């Protein structure tokens, strides 16, 4: 197909109007020639023979009349072995390679090959004469921890394809032709280990979508027990600045029980990404005994990087997630912050002079958010295996007020809501997930009925606390005071978790079950007190013991000793029945 050419007609921030000569498509990529730089952009609107090009770079120096070359390709990512451990910008430009080439600063117009030019040990699984369709595996290579399946490109939909030739096992360059296929009409394709896929289109080469029923363990008690996330599910973490959204996502990215974690640092601080990319290579993943970086991909389009590629970055991230899901893996995508992505849409919408909705966000904000989260899911693949993409997004609501368009649109589509509260973070109660307002539709690691009972005590304790603020401790009954203290204990011992303590920072399911049982027994115990000072003294001591318990290694001697202390302490106040 002949590529269309055009010329710049207008420039408004990063929105460039282009007059074009022959057919172009929406979301097609075009390059503006500015001196000896080529600036990449994406067509986001076409009217008559004018296209609005959202440019992924700063547009200083662009002049009316500058030449534009369209590519007849959609904005796409490269898929293939070598994606793991990479640090990309929103357009899949590898940032370390860019730094090696351009130094301290990002340089516009420099686009490097996303998939590194490596050689891989190749094992064919198809043979000459085999019939394949898009997405079928014809070979494998070992990519670090995983068997990376080399698949028929997902856009080769006019199959079936017959393997005309395939290379023998051996070491090949990632871009070498390793297999040739042909369809019934004689159309031929040479395949390498790499192909591209348009980022804004979901990859749907699976048999069926399954309900997300399996808990995705994060080793954070308040999440796994009270507000669980599921493999293939979605959740959001809204909260005012400083409430702990980023710290929570970083903890999750370390501990989550999945095969691959993709971190999309979308429009927030660069320094926070640096912490991940300096620390992860040094940290050992207890699941694999290998460096955490080996299961991580970072898409980094921080706040001072171009806004349009920020908009693209979440799609780049989710497309890579879907690609690995096709290999039967579980992927967790963490996006921080989806509000910055929404704001990028808002900026662009403003330049297009679209009719604004609430807070000037575009009318399609809700549907874009819904479409994005819909790309999560657990699926059954053609070969019967399952894979999943889980999406967790932070939301940064203006003024910390959840009654705003992005939070509200997100709440409509996600399966769990972890709302962070300023009150809790001010009180240094981390993680600052508000137990009273947050919710989850997924099932957790502990019997739901018992969790519900524990939760109801937290709620009751909160009500009593509100009352006490009015009537004082003096005006509260001993029974109510006990309930209040029980709720406080659940909070201090179970909901709060010290991310700086080596033991407490990540709590495996087994331990959560064990200590929850103890806590539950305590909550159910029939305790006898004469007066409130006695209640307070008892619970302070109990809390101290429970907190010490959180810092001891599971089931070692000290752990057991503290457990015995707790049992004895409770026994001193237990009312004998019968």
């Amino acid at each position, binding site marked *: 197909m002949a590529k269309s050419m055009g010329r710049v*007609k*207008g*420039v*408004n*921030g990063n929105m460039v*109007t282009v007059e074009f000569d022959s057919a172009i498509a929406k979301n097609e990529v075009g390059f503006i020639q500015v001196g000896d730089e080529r600036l990449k952009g994406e067509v986001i609107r076409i009217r008559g023979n004018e296209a609005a090009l959202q440019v992924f770079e*700063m547009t*200083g*120096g*662009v*002049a*009316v*009349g500058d030449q534009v070359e369209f590519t007849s390709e959609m904005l796409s990512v490269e898929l293939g072995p070598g994606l793991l451990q990479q*640090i990309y910008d929103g357009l899949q430009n590898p*940032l*370390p390679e*860019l*730094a090696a080439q*351009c*130094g*301290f*600063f*990002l*340089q*516009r117009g420099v686009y490097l090959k996303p998939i590194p030019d490596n050689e891989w040990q190749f094992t064919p699984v198809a043979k000459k004469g085999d019939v394949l369709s898009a997405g079928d595996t014809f070979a494998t290579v070992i990519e670090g921890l995983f068997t990376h399946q080399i698949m028929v490109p997902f856009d080769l939909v006019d199959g079936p394809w017959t393997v005309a030739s395939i290379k023998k096992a051996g070491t090949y360059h990632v871009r070498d032709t390793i297999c040739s296929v042909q369809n019934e009409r004689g159309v031929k394709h040479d395949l390498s280990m790499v192909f591209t896929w348009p980022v804004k289109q979901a990859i749907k080469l699976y048999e069926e979508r399954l309900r997300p029923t399996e808990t995705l363990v994060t080793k954070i008690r308040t999440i796994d027990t009270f507000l669980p996330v599921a493999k293939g599910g979605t959740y959001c973490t809204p909260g005012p*600045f*400083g409430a702990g959204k980023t710290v929570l996502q970083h903890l999750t990215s370390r501990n989550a029980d999945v095969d691959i974690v993709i971190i999309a640092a979308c*429009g*927030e*601080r*660069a*320094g926070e*990404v*640096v*912490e991940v*990319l*300096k620390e992860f290579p040094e940290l050992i993943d207890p699941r694999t005994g290998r460096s955490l970086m080996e299961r991580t991909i970072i898409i*980094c389009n*921080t*706040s*001072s*990087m171009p*806004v349009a590629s920020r908009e693209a970055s979440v799609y780049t991230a989710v497309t890579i997630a879907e690609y690995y899901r096709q290999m039967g893996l579980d992927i967790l995508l963490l996006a921080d912050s989806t509000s*910055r992505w929404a*704001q990028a849409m*808002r*900026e662009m919408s*403003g330049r297009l002079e679209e009719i*604004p909705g609430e807070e*000037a966000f575009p009318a399609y904000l809700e549907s874009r958010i819904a479409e994005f989260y819909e790309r999560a899911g657990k699926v059954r693949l053609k070969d019967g295996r399952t894979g999943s993409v889980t999406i967790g997004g932070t939301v940064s609501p*203006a*003024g*910390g*007020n959840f009654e705003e368009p992005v939070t509200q649109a997100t709440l409509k589509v996600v399966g769990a809501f972890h709302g962070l509260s300023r009150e809790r973070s*001010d*009180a*240094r109660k981390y993680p600052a997930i508000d137990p009273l307002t947050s919710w989850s539709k997924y099932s957790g690691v502990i019997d739901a009925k018992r969790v519900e009972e524990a939760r109801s005590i937290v709620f009751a304790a909160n009500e009593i606390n509100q009352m006490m603020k009015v009537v*004082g*401790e*003096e005006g509260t009954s001993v029974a109510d005071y006990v309930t209040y203290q029980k709720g406080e204990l659940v909070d201090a011992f179970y909901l709060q978790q010290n991310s700086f303590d080596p033991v407490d920072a990540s709590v495996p399911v087994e331990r959560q079950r064990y200590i929850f049982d103890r806590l539950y027994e305590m909550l159910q115990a029939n305790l006898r007190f004469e007066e409130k000072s006695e209640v307070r003294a008892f619970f302070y001591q109990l809390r101290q013991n429970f907190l010490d318990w959180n810092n001891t290694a599971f089931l070692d001697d000290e752990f057991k000793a503290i457990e015995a202390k707790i049992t004895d302490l409770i026994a001193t106040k237990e009312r004998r029945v019968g």
Partner: protein
Amino acid sequence: MQKIYSKIESIVGNVITVRASGVKNGELGLVSYKGGQSMANVIKLDDDVVSLQVFSGAQGISTGDQVRFLGVPMQVSYSDNLLGRVFDGTGSPRDNGPAMKTNLIEIGGPAVNPAKRIIPRNMIRTGLPMIDLFNTLVESQKLPIFSVSGEPYNELLARIAIQAEVDLIILGGMGLKYDDYLFFRDTLEESGAMSRTIMFIHTASDPTVECLLVPDMALAVAERFALDGKKVLVLLTDMTNFADAMKEMAITMDQVPSNRGYPGDLYSSLASRYEKAVDFEGAGSVTILGVTTMPGDDVTHPVPDNTGYITEGQYYLKGGRIEPFGSLSRLKQQVNAHTRDDHRALMDGMIKLYASYKESLEKRSMGFMMTEWDEKLLKYGDLFERKMMDLSVNIPLEAALDLGWEILADCFDPADTGLRTDLIRARWPKAIE
């Protein structure tokens, strides 16, 4: 080729349009009019209609005035000759020194590649316990002072600047009261810091567009000095004025406001400035200390709100003190493990006790009975506020830590403090029973 265009098509706010060809986005134009000459920069192109924002404001410009395009974007001179000098937002001298026209660099340059950043590692000492002990300032941090108007935020800024061990101070003043400008100048001069200071000053009576240029000018120069190995501290006061100037521009350009009149790109615009804070591996660094006044003491106002999402914490100035609640240095944990072994524990412990003191205060105000424990806390809170929080306190971190222990020992038994036994053994200033 510098063609002269002598038909101005429209004048709206500070934005003029002319019909011209071959003009580049962002390039400078020189507008000649009765009042003299003013620079302007191209902010929009629509076929042959070129929109420029006029730095000196469009007042007095007539449709028959002339525009000449210069073919280059906004630049600033960079050399050691800038030291001790004062400029306006366009880079013209405000003092009586010579104009600086050589060695020009572009302003508003590209972002640092995140892969080239390093984890911040050096504390900046200020002599203020509320900063050094409780929310340590770190080299390459970006951090604003959130303040109600009327608070001594500029005094605080000047004091930190003078005391900080940096090679260079760059002051970006936006909408400064003239008196405040004189205050900065005199204070820096008296302390001997002026010779390592460069100022870009926009005062409240100067044209709005110049206000918009100040951060970019200051940061471009700072970045160059940092690349040349200097530790640079950039002071930006008041960023709320900068945001208001952006608001004014956006409304002129008929942009749809997103929140209380501010443009939808407020966040990105602030971020692209604050993110200039950086520590260059093998060279110098840029640290940004700003002021963000909060209209109506409302931290949810769009300017402080967006700022809080961008910066690495904030110092919350209220009642002439840096409040422990609401203040945050997000980078403190990068450095406070290596200062003194009791730093972190004392920081947490003293704040928790101060929080309890606040609760006791509240109980007292509601007329509830004060227990013996409440009385201890009340004594503690008073000492803490007078000896730690007062802005006149000026002591090194180590002395502040020692003082912390003294205050604790004055008010509490060791077990009351919730501090680790080994630390108490080593540091408690009184005999322990």
